């Protein structure tokens, strides 16, 4: 099918799809007027019942914790998939030892070298702050982890691939990621063991507004933080490693 015919067929069907979707939107609540019964209830009870200020975090790690378990394993499986896809090629390259040092590793100096490295510390601290106070302020394991993982990759921008590989040991981060995923499941199973319900909040809830509060919510958030942070670091590491082996890989 040529491009032009394909475009005509698609545009015709897209107009119908768009019209149908807009017709369906007429049945949705008008913009700015929605209020669901479930969410109204959660907004009322979550601070009293779970001692948290940030309701989405309470939903993620407590009320709908089982959904998060599913999301978490999608994440885990995708990272494993990426590692698996690259391992076929990397197995060959690693026989020559570590990827060769980038020319950039030595040439850069001064501000170019130290500014991104300093930024790493700052962004990593921000990520940890977001991850650790998910029950009080906007943030939580998912966002904090993504920001922390990205911060580690800033080392690459500043110093180069060699330093990045030395800093982020793949095996260590891989293991920590698995540990994070395991901790989430283990907390759920422990709750089932003690109370008979999977992922029930079993920890003491603590003072509302304290750093460690919300019971299991805090610990699940930390487990997710470790998993996402290490998963992102490993992901960016294997991608950026590809840039170091242009010569060996292509022959």
């Amino acid at each position: 099918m040529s491009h032009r015919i394909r475009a005509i067929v698609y545009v015709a069907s897209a107009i119908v799809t768009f019209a149908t979707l807009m017709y369906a939107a007429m049945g949705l609540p008008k913009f700015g007027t929605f209020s669901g019964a479930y969410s109204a209830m959660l907004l009322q009870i979550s601070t009293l019942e779970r001692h948290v200020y940030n309701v989405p975090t309470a939903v993620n790690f407590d009320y709908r914790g089982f959904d998060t378990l599913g999301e978490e394993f999608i994440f885990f499986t995708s990272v494993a998939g990426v590692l698996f896809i690259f391992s076929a090629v990397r197995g060959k390259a690693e026989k020559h030892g570590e990827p060769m040092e980038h020319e950039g590793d030595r040439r850069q100096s001064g501000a170019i070298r130290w500014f991104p490295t300093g930024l790493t510390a700052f962004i990593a601290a921000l990520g940890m702050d977001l991850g650790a106070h998910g029950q009080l302020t906007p943030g939580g394991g998912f966002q904090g982890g993504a920001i922390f993982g990205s911060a580690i990759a800033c080392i690459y921008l500043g110093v180069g691939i060699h330093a990045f590989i030395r800093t982020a040991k793949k095996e260590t981060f891989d293991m920590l990621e698995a540990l994070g995923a395991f901790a989430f499941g283990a907390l759920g199973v422990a709750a089932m063991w003690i109370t008979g319900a999977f992922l029930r909040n079993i920890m003491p809830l603590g003072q509302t507004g304290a750093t460690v509060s919300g019971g299991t919510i805090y610990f699940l958030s930390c487990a997710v933080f470790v998993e996402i942070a290490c998963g992102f670091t490993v992901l960016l590491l294997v991608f950026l490693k590809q840039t170091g082996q242009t010569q060996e890989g292509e022959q």
Partner: protein
Amino acid sequence: MSLLQIILYVLVAVLGAAVVFSKRPINQLFIYTTFGMMLALLFFVLHAPDVGLSEIAVGTFAVPLMVLVTLMKTDTKT
């Protein structure tokens, strides 16, 4: 619906179309990054700071970096 919201919605719609219609992948990547940033701003304006934080980390750093590496590795030299 405030003016800020209308502006951001229009920007997101235009940038989304620009991502699709840009021909060279490297240009597309930069437009995509801008699109991600506008999306994050829109999420903040819609009272969803949690979602905005996720989108900033993912849409403006992690995904563009990985796409950049893929572009580098699949340079077709044409």
